[in-house]
Structure formats: structure tokens, C-alpha cells
């Protein structure tokens, strides 16, 4: 699958991941889906992590109602949430068991592996409906 990922967006994701380190950043990828299935990401937006600080470097959770508000705003502009990004501080950019369980089929999941020295790896996943 082709996904247009411009430099500005990826720079923004890398900044978020580094900024949140050693905590875990998370956010949504916003953009448009063309009729033939191609998607274009036009915006990345950080979302506040709801997990209390103690566990922040291992988990993230966002408020579904906040997503609801964001969606309503995007609907008016003809945009939609196409994916989710989050960072794995000091861990590989692989899907954890928790990530897999919480994946919404069809959405893009970008994982950034980040260490104290910067971004180590970026990977993108998508789950098909079983």
C-alpha cells in the first residue's frame, strides 16, 4: 500500500518522540482518502497521554471523547483520522502485544523507536480485518 508521508510530517513525529522521551508520545495522523484507496496524510497531531506518569514510558491511552471532538472538527473540513503514531522509548519499533490487541483494522500505525541518542527506527503497520 502506498502512503504519502511527507518530510514535514515525519520530522514532526520524530520531534514528538524525542520530546516525550523517556515517556511515550502518541498522536493521530490526519488526511484524506482518495476514491481509489490512496491516502494522503496532511497533518500529525499530538494527543495527551492519559496514563499516569509512573507508567508513561511503557503505555499510552487517549481519551476517546477527545477523538470524537477531533473527528467532528475534521468532518467539516473533509478530513479524517487515518492512523495513529506512538513512540517506543528504548524499545524496538515492533508491535507489542498490547499494540496488537488495540489495533483498529485499516488504520495506519506508525511506531517510532527512540533512545536517548535520538530516533533509532520508524515502522508502519496496518492490520487487516480477520
Amino acid at each position, binding site marked *: 500500500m502506498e502512503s504519502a508521508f511527507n518530510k514535514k510530517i515525519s520530522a514532526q513525529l520524530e520531534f514528538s518522540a524525542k520530546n516525550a522521551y523517556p515517556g511515550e508520545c502518541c498522536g493521530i495522523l490526519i488526511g484524506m482518502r482518495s476514491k481509489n484507496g490512496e491516502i494522503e496524510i496532511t497533518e500529525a497531531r499530538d494527543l495527551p497521554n492519559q496514563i499516569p506518569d509512573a507508567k508513561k514510558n511503557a503505555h499510552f491511552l487517549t481519551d476517546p471523547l477527545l477523538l470524537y471532538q477531533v473527528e467532528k472538527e475534521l468532518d467539516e473540513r473533509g478530513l479524517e483520522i487515518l492512523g495513529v503514531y506512538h513512540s517506543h522509548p528504548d524499545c524496538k519499533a515492533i508491535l507489542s502485544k498490547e499494540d496488537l490487541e488495540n489495533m*483498529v483494522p485499516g488504520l495506519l500505525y506508525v511506531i517510532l523507536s527512540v533512545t536517548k541518542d535520538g530516533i533509532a527506527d520508524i515502522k508502519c503497520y496496518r492490520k487487516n480485518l480477520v
Partner: protein
Amino acid sequence: MKIYISATLRNFFGKNSQVDAPVDTVRKALDYLITTYPEGEKVLYSDNKKIRSFIQIYVNNKKLTVETLWDASLPENTEILLLPAIAGGAPVDAPVESLISDERRKEVSFDDSEIERFGKHLMLRDIGVKGQKRIKAAKVVVAGAGALGSPVIQYLAAAGVGTIKVIDFNEVSLDNLQSQVIHGSRDIKRPKVASAKDKVKNINKNIVFEAVKEQLDASNIVSEIEGYDLVVDCSDNYKARYLINDACALHGIPVVFGAIYQFEGQVGVFNLDGGPCYRCQYPSPPPSGLIPSCSEGGAISPLPGIVGSIQANEALKLILGIGEHLNGKLLHIDSLNLTSRILKVERDCNCPICGNNPTITDVEEIDYEDLCGLKTNDETPVEGFTPEELAKRIDNEDDMTIVDVREPHERAILRFPNAIVIPIGQLARRQKELDPNKDTIFVCKEGKRSVLAINTLREAGYTGPLYNLKGGIDAMKDIMFSHEGAWL
């Protein structure tokens, strides 16, 4: 009822953002939805008919959590929101990275004899040449060259750890030889670090061995551990354990902790990758004297060999970045009943060292003597006699009561004649057996439990004069046995 479907889920429900369901409960509404859009069933429900974890259902902007709400009759203007749960987390049990960076590994080379020496490591897929180079590049501090230090130092040396620093203040004594297998009869009265150095150099003369004969305290610990990859805690007392833990936590150095008592042992890894520290598990030491140290409580000879070998194994795995670690776990071994279990240690967000708002930022802020109750309380100092003074009083046949608070098996080693025996636990109850008009002297093995006994009695309201035998029977036996007509 209206059902709002998040854009992230809409593809499975005919791309609709809203569906009107002519029903009055949440359950019926969802049934209606999947009857209309059968492909949506797999999105909403898992194989065992549970709502999938990535779906959040809100009813009138409130999260649906109570099961009964599923079938509660709701008004027509109710709005159900089907939202995605954006959640996840870094892999919890992800392999820990090696403590040794690739750059440092690449600086290491081997000669032919090393290839031969470490052949059994090189043939292991998980170690190999790269892993062996990490071992050689590693710099490890072993705190203590006693019972646990003996196997730890020898195995780290044999495994090829390039730099080993051993810190120990003591000299070898005869009673050490029962368990401290790095020392021999000829080492008695030599510094333990000197004897350890001989052994290590005999194993591999190329190892950089740093012998530090020093009592660790808040003023010197940081300079001793700085620049090292790992500290293996082989100490036998709480003061050293807290000191090592605190300094390592503040300087980001992982600790492989080990402890033994009688037939039981513990091993754990602390301060690794944001994991818990020793204080998260044990916020404060037990009152001084309550739990005998290994030197007071004793330990079966091979036990430190078992526990120390596991510590060395953990240390090597951390250096190599392989396998499962005791990070955030505590392994408990019972060698008497041959059982072991792994306890989980959670990081304490209120921990004064590694918590969210740490209150300790420098080890020099802490009085470790005081923390471990090793300082006598200034308000009610415990009066005591030196062994010489007590010996003189016994010679003078002074009228006094001597109370032995040791355990029965300890008394079997050496009896204190004419002493009455009251275990600490029974003291408060049996205080009537003591005469408040007579001087009463408490004795134990090292003179620590006897202080606890005196404080216990005072707290229980006993008013008579109480004295402690300083240094305990251990300090007394040399004197009494050495002069003629000994009473002991």
C-alpha cells in the same frame, strides 16, 4: 436511538457516520447495526463474543462500563458513540539492550589464546565473538569479596570480564573459609581484596583487577562506581545495600543484588532501564538487630555459591543483552526445601530515589548509619560494659543478673554460665523474672540484639538498671579464655 460511528470504523458500516436504530437498549442497537452491516460484526466482537478492546462505547457522552446498562431501556434521543480506543504500549518484555555499546565492542580484539580460552562461549549462538567482545569490554564493580563475592568474582573473571573492581575492607579470618571459597588458609589475616586479586590473576593475568580496600560510605561510593557498567552487590549488611542502591540509582548504574540467610537466598536486578530500585521493594531497613545478618544468622556453605553464581549469570546476561532478566523481579531460593519463586517488584512512584518526585538527589545527604539504626539514640543511650569491665565485675563477684537473649542453637556453640535465658520475643512478658534493684546485663552474639532487648524492656516500662555487653560474646570470648581462672 442514534449511533455515531467514528470515521476510523466507518468503512465497516457502509461508510455511514450515523445510523438510526429503532430500538431502546444498547445491546439491541448494536444487534441492529450488525444485522444491517454483517461485515461489522467481526470489528465489534471478538471470536468469544466480547466487544473488542479497541472499541469504546459511550452512551450520551458517558463511557459504558456497567454491564446492566447494556439492557437498560433508554429514551429515544439517546446517542451511542462507537469510538476507537487509541492505546498501546512499548513491549514490556522486550529484550534488554546490552550494557556495552557496539562502539565499545568494536574496539576489542582477541588473540589466539583468547579464542581458545573462550571457545565454549564462542560456540554459543547467543554469545559468539560479538558477545565475548562485549564481556571483555565490560567494567564491573563487585562490592564485597566475601561469601557471595567469591563465586561472582571468580565466574566473572573466568568468563572474561575485562575490568573487575573489588571493594572490601576486611581481612580473611578462619570462619570465612566455610563459605568464602575465593580465600584459603594461607590467606588468613590478608586483605580479602589481595587474596581475590591473586585468584583472579591466576585465572587470567590479562584481566584489569582493581583492588580497593576501603569501607564504602557516602563520601567515596560515587567515585568508586563512576564509569563502570554494572555493580554486583555482594555486601552482607543493610547499610551497604542502601548506599550501593542509592548511588547506583542516582548515577544510572544497574545493580545485581544478592543476599543470603541461613538456607535462603535472593537475587534481583535493580535500576535497569527505568525499572525499580531496591528501595521500591524495601523502602526502609528493618530495625537494627531484628534480623540477624548473615554473619550473625549463619548460612549453609554452598548457598552463597548458588546465589552468587546466579548473580554472575545475571551480570553476564546484562552485559550481553540476552535472555530474560530479573529486572523488576526478585528470585527467592529455599535451598533446604529446594523451592524457588520469582516475586514481582513494582517501581514505586513515591520512591525517594527513583520515584516521580525524588527527595534524595545525593548520597551525601543521607546518614546511612542512622537509616539502618546503627546509631545509638542520643535521648536514651544504652549503657554498656566492655568485655574487660564485665570480666572484672564477674571476678569481683558483683551481684548482678546476666540475661542471654540468643537462640537455643547459638547457646549450644558457647554457653554463658550463670546467665538466665530469655529470648527477645518473651522479654516484655517475662520482665517480672528480673530484679529491678539489681544491675542486669544483656548479652548476645555481637552486642546488637542485646541493645534491642534493652530498648524493648524500657518500652515495656521496666525501670531497673540495664546494661549491654559491648561487642557481645564474640568480643568476650577472647578475653575470658585467655586469662587464667576464667569464669567463662
